């Protein structure tokens, strides 16, 4: 009954709700084991209950019962029978074990590389040259169009564990070692999980989101992820109050202007030669201003935005940040407010996160947010 309540919960992480072949095999095995152990439990407990009821000392009886010291036949019987049960259990387990763990990778499999970090997940698709973070997309793998994902997992720092219960058992993720697993999702949808090996302060918030798309959706997603971002025209207006205009197509009237609409569309070619180094804080909240701050503060030492000078590998790849539903590895929804709060001080949302608060001004934070919002 409790289970029913739980299984009806909106996002199920039940190990009994299976959407892939490995998960199904594990589930069938688990049912078999549950059956056998259940029978053993019922048998032994009944005998125990019977014994303590039938052989209670009667009131006032102080005589001793006949002393029985043992019986070789009985000892043998309850040695041999358990051995037989063990043999059955072991052979069934071994069969599933070898079939799942030693499965051969077909030529049409999708390759995925998973890298665990403190406290986020990096995903790479070597066949497509795509790098993303925290939200994994996989294509549906149906009987007529099988497309299993064969994953190689490793860690950049400490031990983690990749666990999405509806898709498979967990695989630990270790530094200096590559582990492997495979899944072939039979149903589209969003599957959630989280890190399952204690890895430090925010272990509980290292969440996983796996989106199983139809093959067409997956193709589109890949195509989007492969797009590079652009170096926007950089820098905006000069020192506070000055009317100096340096951005050619900014369309500003000068002075303090918020021009959210004056940002350059993402895929326009970079302009060269029109950039004047900024000597003061830029005033407008624009994507160009944001990218300028992003590239001149320490952001690029940790983050990558493909197509720009940002090639840091320590933190999540941000090239297509806005294609994700969450930030902070599933812990925080990906909205403008939350993004701003995160950039301001990550430890407010995820204390123990390894991204430091950069102590930029509010304006700079808003500018960066504006820039990030363009990274679709």
């Amino acid at each position, binding site marked *: 009954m409790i289970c029913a309540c739980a299984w009806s919960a909106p996002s199920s992480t039940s190990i009994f709700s299976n959407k892939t072949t490995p998960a199904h095999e*594990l589930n069938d095995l688990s049912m078999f084991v549950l059956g056998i152990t259940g029978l053993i439990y019922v048998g032994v407990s009944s005998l*125990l209950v019977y014994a303590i009821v039938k052989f209670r000392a009667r009131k006032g009886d102080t005589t*001793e019962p006949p002393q*029985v010291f043992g019986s070789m036949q009985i000892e043998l019987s309850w040695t041999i029978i358990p051995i037989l049960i*063990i043999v059955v259990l072991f052979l069934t387990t071994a069969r599933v074990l070898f079939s799942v763990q030693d499965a051969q990778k077909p030529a049409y499999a999708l390759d995925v590389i998973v890298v665990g970090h403190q406290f986020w997940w990096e995903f790479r698709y070597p066949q497509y040259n795509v790098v993303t973070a925290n939200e994994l997309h996989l294509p549906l793998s149906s009987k007529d169009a099988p497309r299993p994902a064969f994953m190689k997992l490793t860690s950049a720092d400490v031990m983690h564990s990749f666990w999405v219960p509806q898709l498979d058992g967990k695989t630990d993720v270790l530094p200096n070692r590559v582990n492997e697993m495979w899944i072939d999702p039979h149903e589209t949808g969003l599957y959630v999980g989280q890190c*399952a090996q204690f890895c430090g302060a925010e272990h*509980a918030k290292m969440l996983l989101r796996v989106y199983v798309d139809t093959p067409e959706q997956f193709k589109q997603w890949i195509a989007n992820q492969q797009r590079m971002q652009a170096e926007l025209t950089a820098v905006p207006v000069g020192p506070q109050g000055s009317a100096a205009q340096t951005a050619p197509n900014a369309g500003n009237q000068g002075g303090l202007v918020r021009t959210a609409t004056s940002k350059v569309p993402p895929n326009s070619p970079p302009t060269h030669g029109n950039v004047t180094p900024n000597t003061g804080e830029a005033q407008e909240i624009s994507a160009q201003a944001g990218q300028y701050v992003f590239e001149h503060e320490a952001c690029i030492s940790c983050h990558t935005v493909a197509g720009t000078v940002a090639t840091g590998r320590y933190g999540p790849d941000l090239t297509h940040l806005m294609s994700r539903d969450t930030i902070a590895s599933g812990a925080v929804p990906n909205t403008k407010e939350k993004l701003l709060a995160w950039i301001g001080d990550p430890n407010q949302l995820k*204390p123990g996160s390894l991204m430091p608060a950069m102590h930029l001004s509010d304006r700079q934070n808003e500018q960066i947010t504006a820039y990030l919002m363009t990274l679709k």
Partner: protein
Amino acid sequence: MGTESMPAPQGIETAVDRTAVVSRPGTYLELIHSWIVTVDHKRLGILYICYALVFLLVAGTEALLIRIQLFYPHNDFVSPFTFNRLFTMHGTTMVFLVGMPILFGFGNYLVPLMIGARDMAFPRLNAFSFWISAFAGLLLYYSFIGGVGLYGTGSAPDVAWFAYAPLTERPFSPGHSTDYWAVAILANGIGSIGTAINILATFFCMRCKGMTLSRIPLLPWLYATMSFLVLVAVSPLTAAQAMLLIDRYLGGHFFDTQMGGSAILWAHFFWIFGHPEVYVLVLPAFAFANEIIPVFSRKAIFGYPAMVAASVGIGFISLGVWAHHMFTIGMTSFGNAFFTLSTMLVSIPTGIKTFNWLATLWGGKIRFATPMLFSIAFLFQWVIAGLTGIMLSVSAWNWQLHNSYFVVAHFHYVLVGAIVFMIFAAIYYWYPKMTGRMLDDRLGKWHFWLMVIGFHVTFDVMHFPGLLGMPRQIFTYEPDRGWTLLNQIVSVGGFIQGIAVLIFVYNMVHSYFRGVEAGPDPWDAWTLEWSTTSPPPAYNFVVDPVVASRRPLWDLKHPEDPDSAFE
């Protein structure tokens, strides 16, 4: 003292030494001093037990704080850093500062008495082992206030009780929390090894005349097996901790993955210790069952040779199962299969023991005194614990269950449902011998029933979050996973158990002063400790015992049907 053949036995009373009256105790300072410098195995046993009970309350409080934090998703009762320290300290304390000491305490107290000796083989080593363990416990808890940890909240260990590398290496644990963990537990291990040496030397070399190996009661047999396991299994932990300290302080690379070191090696070393360790904890629980169940069924234990063989067999097989804690770490399929098989094999001797207990009850005349109530609960709970263990041994299914609350429920079923319940049984059973007074029976029943209810509310229910995908060691959880109600029920059960334990502590203190006098043999039992006064004199026995069977007192009480006629 020589052994003397007395005239035909007239009953136990004549043997009781009435001159063993403690002379005037002197000042309180003298009293405390006598306890600090004691080398008497009985006093050291009591010191171990009291020390462990204090830490039981501390670690229990840590558990309740954990349960409060997990009552609601996204709760902020404690910070993630504090939570990580709480669960690390809860586990470390319970295993090393409660489980090991209290079981060593009972071993210290009972083994010499049961084999008819006057003390352990090495009394001063015994005292040293206790005091270094006590120092280790205090050092571990000093960490809460000593130094400044990474986040300034003290340096209590926060790396989980199994302290996986490379989280424990300097780059990832720059504060001192890991150091407190490593040094304190290393010191504790030295104490454990000392006691283990003592128990084995006592077992082999100090038996009274006539007590051949096949006449030793089962408790000393199980303690000897457990001590052997301590020698072979605690040492790998000591070695691994030394390696960790070499890495952290001398720049070594044992677990430094940047220089080719291996995280999986730590896991192997730790579990080579960790699995036998849980058998170190459970074998004494079996020992208590082996003594208590027969006495309250009024029958000899069924199948003594099989019990000895099974116990020793469990000890040996348990050395070969450790990697069932590592099924998800990426071993080959062959490795996974091997450890599946070895783990399943350990259930055979364990099953033999369980069935032998059942057969002891069968045909008996069961008396439901408080020690027996706890023992019967133990039997039911042990069966469940063993069966969830079998489930976990199925390596493929383990890939889902590992590191989830299912595992937490399983091992608490073993540690609380089996071991703590038998510790309670043992205290109710032997407290009269140690103090001369009976524990109050009514309070005992309250303790028992509240404990059973609280235990099952918590740990039966706890299996389900695991089955629904909740990992362990997380300071909070997402509200949309369906785990909330289950966590709340689990937390409530924890508080019920807390109340039960408080009643128990009150019982122990109250009965010490006001309990009914016990006499030498309140339970009508059969092993040698019941032949002397309660509490025994410093020298244990007036005359060195001579035995001719496994149950010397049965022979005395039933001269028409002595066990010695059957051996």
